[in-house]
């Protein structure tokens, strides 16, 4: 029945193509006549079309194409694009599936497993070479002067990272694709001491001390270009703001300091008081005695060890250094 309607449609199609501009009435007439001719010339005596026991005449299948394939044919012409597995077109004795007991896996003819799995028959090495030959003119060369990562970092210190997503689904878009990470090493920027400290305070968590990399992540805008622009804007603002010195920055207290400095600390006062009372530099008090004491090498060593302890934390070597310095100060 399907073949009959298809034959009718084919005839209809041919008539349409040959006589353009026929109005619908004529087409309808041609369609009906085609149908009546077909039903009259049915080659089955009984039963009628669509009845029980009617078997559609099936044309014989010929020999599979694989038998006529020469060994040195151009495979890229046989499989130019991605196509499902057709066993009669592939001259390979491929078997796939769970083997029959004591036997081999099922053969390729009528094998659903081979049809289901994506095949790479269109991407043989010869095909890849041909494709790349055609694509070569569109590629540009990497500049030969930037062969090492160090040179790249020196000339191009700002790194912008973004991700693209490809997947099959209802939508092509992925909202995570708008996220932009901007990474820059602070040593490459033109910052003085005050600017660097202020920048670190402004930036907070985004700075990694071990690698000296500032990471700005922008994901608040819906488009990647917007997020990139915003991250560059942020970097510019941070840079210029850190060079500014505001009036209230003069109120910086000891608690705000990033590093411990010994000058003017209770430790300095205590050690100088102790030395004056021990009368190490002789009799007398006053500023000159303190300055004289400060100039002493033991006091300098003590200062170094205390600074190291406070900045680096307590570990074996810093504690040893502190012990030695204290012993020297007290002449033990």
């Amino acid at each position, binding site marked *: 029945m399907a073949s009959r309607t298809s034959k009718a449609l084919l005839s209809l199609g041919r008539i349409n193509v040959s006589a353009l501009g026929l109005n619908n009435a004529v087409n309808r007439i041609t369609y009906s006549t085609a149908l009546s001719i077909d039903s009259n010339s049915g080659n089955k005596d009984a039963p009628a079309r669509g009845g029980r026991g009617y078997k559609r005449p099936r044309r014989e299948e010929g020999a599979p194409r694989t038998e006529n394939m020469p060994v040195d044919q151009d495979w*890229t*012409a046989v499989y*130019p*694009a*991605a196509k499902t597995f057709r066993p009669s077109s592939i001259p390979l004795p491929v078997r796939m599936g769970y083997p029959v007991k004591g036997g081999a896996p099922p053969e390729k003819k009528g094998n659903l497993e081979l049809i289901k*799995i*994506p095949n*790479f028959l269109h*991407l043989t*090495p010869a*095909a*890849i*070479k*041909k494709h*790349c030959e*055609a*694509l*070569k*003119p*569109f*590629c*540009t*060369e*990497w*500049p*030969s*002067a*930037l*062969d090492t*990562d160090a040179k*790249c970092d020196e*000339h*191009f*210190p*700002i*790194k*912008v*990272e*973004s*991700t*693209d*997503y*490809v997947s*099959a689904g209802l939508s092509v878009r992925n909202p995570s694709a708008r996220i932009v990470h901007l990474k*820059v090493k602070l040593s*490459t*920027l*033109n910052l003085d001491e005050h600017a660097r400290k202020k920048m670190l305070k402004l930036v907070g968590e985004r700075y990694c001390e071990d690698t000296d990399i500032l990471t700005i992540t922008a994901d608040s805008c819906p488009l990647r*270009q917007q997020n990139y*622009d915003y991250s*560059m*804007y942020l970097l*510019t603002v941070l*840079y*210029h703001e850190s*060079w*500014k*010195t*505001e*009036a209230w920055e003069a109120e910086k207290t000891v608690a705000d300091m990033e590093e411990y400095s010994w000058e003017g600390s209770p430790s300095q006062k205590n050690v100088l008081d102790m030395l004056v009372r021990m009368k190490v530099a002789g009799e007398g008090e006053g500023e000159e005695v303190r300055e004289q004491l400060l100039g002493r090498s033991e006091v300098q060593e003590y200062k170094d060890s205390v600074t190291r302890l406070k900045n680096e934390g307590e570990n074996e070597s810093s504690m040893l250094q502190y012990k030695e310095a204290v012993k020297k100060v007290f002449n033990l």
Partner: protein
Amino acid sequence: MAAPTVLRRQLFPLARILSGLSHLKPRSLTVCSGHRRCAVSRFPPPLTPSASFHTATPLSSSAITVTEEPDVLFQKVLVLVKSHDRAVLDSYEFFATTAAQELGITVGKVFEPQKDIERVTLLKSVHIFKNHRVQYEMRTHFRCIELSHITGSTAKVYLEYVQRNLPEGVAMEVTKTAMEKVPDHILKPMWEDLPADDKPSQ
């Protein structure tokens, strides 16, 4: 027509390096820097591979346009493919690495992150029978290909080629790390040029 385009394309690497020292690129003071377009644009629509090597006609070089826009430079391009089937990823890895080698792209490392199994335990029956459950799992296999030192145009070409031949049921994530110079407006603080202005205090 072919010779000057080839020459210009070869001069591009030099132009890119020199621009760092002599500021040849047009710069704008605004933060919104100009859009970086690839140096080599393709003619629309892209040719299907079958057409090119069936007829074996050479591509006319006049169809390739070379613009003056500086090419983006990617220090690293990470291609991560995910699938439920490890064999498909093996074949795809062979295809992607061969294509990269043919196009002259340096392949960093190709490795396989650990597979991720998501397991679900559900009740077997529609109603009651809490002690009888059925378990399903979804396995996701990964493959990661790292390409280094690749230009914007080459990256576009390679990624489009590789993405057009993504098999069904395979997803891809591409992480690109682009390198850029320090922009002009960050080279020195702007307060040096405006000494007379009062700095606004907050």
